[in-house]
């Protein structure tokens, strides 16, 4: 299982990461952040293969994925 970190300070809720994830690990959160943005939320970390596309497309440097799969 990989850990995915989303910075609530930096994320502006553009949701490009949700669109880009090939494994559909991320989903749109049902709650609104303190700054008024609808943030992405991790739905299923088991499916994440660590491709890092969410890190590459993020315009706000807000998401980070653990590259090493610690469970294996």
């Amino acid at each position: 299982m990989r850990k995915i970190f989303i910075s609530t300070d930096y994320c502006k809720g553009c949701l490009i990461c949700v669109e880009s994830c090939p494994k559909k690990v991320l989903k749109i959160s049902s709650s609104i952040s303190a700054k008024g943005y609808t943030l992405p939320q991790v739905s299923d970390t088991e499916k994440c293969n660590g491709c890092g596309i969410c890190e590459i497309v993020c315009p706000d440097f807000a998401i980070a994925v653990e590259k090493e799969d610690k469970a294996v």
Partner: protein
Amino acid sequence: MLKHPMLKYLKESGPHGTRLPLIMCPGCGVGQVLNYTLHAVDSIIKEGGANKEDFVFISGVGCSSRLTSHYLNFDSGWTIHGRALAIATGVLLANPDLNIVVFTGDGDAAAIGGNHFIHAFRRNINVTVICMNNGLYGMTGGQVAPTTLSQAVTSTTPYGNIEDAFDLCRLAQSSGASYVARWTTAHPHKTIKAIKKAICKKGAAFIEILSQCPVHKKQTPVDMIRALKAMTVPIKNAEGSSKIPVGEFCDTPRPEWTQKYEAIIEKCAGRKS
């Protein structure tokens, strides 16, 4: 908590407090282009192609030009509108070994800086120009720009743009650039590869990145990314298509300006002694 890997190249805080999050609107393509550029630079540094101190980032004025000195933990200059390439020429003359990356927008490059743009490529100076083209003047209110597509609606063309758009890649290519490529923010890996190639090349390289302005186009960033994918076609299939071609337009090495200048200096120095 794990942080984004590219934050090591950014200044998270300064004398007046925290600098991040970026000033750009939610979903702006400019932040994505910064991310792609830092990935390319990171890959060059990791492969030993250059040190962090060898990079200089120069920008003019506009949304895209806000990226340099305020955020980047590199040597950088936030300079005058449209004249980023002129200042980059000066930086290069002072130290021809530097890797100079110019961040510019479509208004900065094609409208106010149009003349510097063509002459930098004519001289073939060793700079990498990364142009974020969102097809309007984003910072001043979404007015029509020379790169606005025909029939596109902006705040000053509410019934559609009657003019044709500048094709910046063809302009750079015919001016004499060594390397020209166009990609969009919807093609992350291709863009990173093109930026890396452009930085490693000697000579003037131009990369146009079609980008989204969700605020002035009044669409969601995700819809705009999908539209960018749908409106472009790879250059090898572009024949007869009405879509925008993306890919490498040219890769033709030409003698670089500072090398020729140094040859003149050596020749004259030899004549003197």
